[in-house]
């Protein structure tokens, strides 16, 4: 915990009596790229706004660099925010937008000019200084919003779904650019998104949130491979989530069939959620699989086919490079390590 730059202790927040954040505790290390991931209304933006100082927690403490900052207003905090729709100042040109924070610090014109020009260069926006904000594309506005924050050399940069308004191609480009920039500048990034793919690509640590509670915190690989509950499994990547019953350690019954698995420690006869990733299911000729089913639909996805296969009354989502036409009977197989057992959520 010594090198934690941001530390949240038991943060609770209510809006009009409704709990938005329920006892959130987490720490962010220096130079880390942390992503808050979750569906809308899960509390991720509120958490970010509490760190930024725009909301006050009802309970709990916020530490910045070891210092309690609950009562510090946003304009005295050494962190900067990139807002969802950028919140650029339309009455100021590009140069003045970036210089805004520096002018408040009463820097001399020469220093300001040097800093702003360096930012413009860094973001490939040279010669754009005199432009009005409404003359820029979404991608350019995005860069200026980041430049405006970074020019103040914050220790932590907060980003609230900064790529949400961009089209897919630009979003991919910016994801790489942002990640590269974070590494180059050595600044802590706290990033909010509802896009799981974005989170997986960019983050060092992902915090999955739902209904004001942290569901799981870990590296992208951990979160994807070892989801702690059905919500995380479902939210990160696509999943088949089935009801199962533990027969014994390493043995689970799903859809009336017994499967070997790698999980133990559950009670006998305990009802569990079973998560199976669509790419872990393999097709076999009819009669040779662990489960027998009928293909309901096939969509070509480029690298693989996406199929709905109904077996034992459950419609499995299957990603496979093999393809079986609609209406044919097929078998499905899976190995013990493809089966993820989770405690039933409340």
């Amino acid at each position, binding site marked *: 915990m010594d090198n934690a730059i941001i530390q949240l202790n038991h943060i609770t927040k209510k809006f009009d009596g409704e709990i938005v954040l329920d006892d959130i505790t987490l720490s962010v290390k220096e130079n880390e790229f942390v992503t808050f991931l979750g569906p809308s209304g899960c509390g991720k933006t509120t958490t970010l706004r509490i760190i*930024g*100082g*725009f909301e006050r927690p009802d309970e709990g403490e916020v530490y910045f660099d070891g210092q309690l900052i609950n009562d510090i*207003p*946003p*304009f*005295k905090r050494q962190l*900067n*925010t990139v*807002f*969802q*729709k950028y*919140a*650029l*100042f*339309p*009455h100021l040109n590009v140069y003045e937008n970036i210089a*805004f*924070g520096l002018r*408040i*610090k009463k820097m001399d014109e020469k220093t300001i000019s040097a800093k702003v020009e360096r930012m413009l260069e860094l973001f490939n926006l040279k010669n754009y200084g005199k*432009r*009005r904000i409404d*003359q*820029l*594309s979404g991608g350019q506005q995005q860069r200026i919003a980041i430049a*405006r*924050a970074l020019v*103040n050399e914050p220790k932590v940069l907060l980003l609230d779904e900064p790529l949400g308004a961009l089209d897919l191609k630009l979003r991919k480009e910016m994801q790489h650019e942002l990640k590269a920039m974070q590494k180059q500048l050595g600044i802590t990034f706290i990033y909010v998104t509802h896009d799981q793919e974005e989170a997986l690509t960019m983050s060092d640590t992902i915090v999955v949130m739902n209904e004001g509670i942290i569901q799981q915190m870990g590296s992208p690989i951990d979160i994807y491979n070892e989801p702690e509950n059905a919500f995380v499994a479902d939210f990160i990547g696509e999943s088949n989530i089935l009801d199962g019953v533990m027969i014994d350690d390493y043995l689970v019954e799903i859809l009336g069939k017994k499967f070997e698995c790698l999980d133990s420690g559950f009670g006998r006869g305990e009802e569990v959620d079973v998560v199976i990733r669509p790419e872990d299911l393999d097709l076999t000729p009819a009669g040779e699989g662990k489960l027998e089913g009928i293909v309901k639909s096939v969509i070509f996805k480029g690298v693989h086919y996406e199929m709905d296969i109904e077996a034992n009354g459950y419609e499995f989502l299957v990603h496979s490079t093999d393809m079986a036409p609609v209406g044919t009977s097929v078998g499905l197989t899976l190995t013990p390590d493809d089966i993820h057992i989770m405690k039933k959520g409340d």
Partner: protein
Amino acid sequence: MVRKYLSKIYMGIIFIFLYAPIVVLAVFSFNESKSRGHWTGFSLKWYIELFHDQDIRMAFYYTITIAIITAIVSTILGTIAAIGINAMKGRQKALILNVNYLPVVNPDIVTGISLMILYISFNMDFGFNTMLLSHIVFSIPYVILSILPKLKQLDVHMTEAAMDLGATPMYALRKVIIPEIKPGIITGFLMAFTLSIDDFIISYFTKGEGVTNLSIIIYSMARRGVRPTINALSTIMLIVVLLLMILINKRANGHDKSKNINRSEV
């Protein structure tokens, strides 16, 4: 095609209807005799006499002075109030907005007599001050109503962004909020000015000894016959307004054009 001509003829008739009295006024301000309705020859004498007509000059002075002070004061007070109201929520906000709305929906005559009763209840002397105060009272709601939509349009994160960059709330207000809502403030200012300059009813009930405005003078003359000097003054005022509007329009258009050029470069 026929439809197009019909449209043109229709708009022509509407504009003749709207401008007939104005043309009559303007034309008769150059009439030699005092008679209205009879053209006796061209003359500029009413324009010359305008400079010697003490009543009209005083009324003009009061009208303009009150309009300028009203516009300035109600714009300042209205802007501050609008910013505050915008930050309010729920029932409190609804109540204030409704009361604020009263002078707008109330007949002017009701606003006029209610203020008159107020001033008498407080033993105030009727005159310049009561008239000015009344104008400010009924102008502020319009200023607020023209600024509030601009505040609503404002990106909710705009103030936060400024504070995030180190601006104190006051600095954010001065450097971000006020510049952003400027169009609304200007509209409000012009509205207050126009309402004040054009008001008759409320001034009529709150005027005092020796203080009149143009509307009141015209009203008092209407039955006996309005002096053509008033026609001359109004013609001058209308031409000034017209020129100002054309100037503002030209500037706005020029601005738009330069913007478009820049845009095409991108």
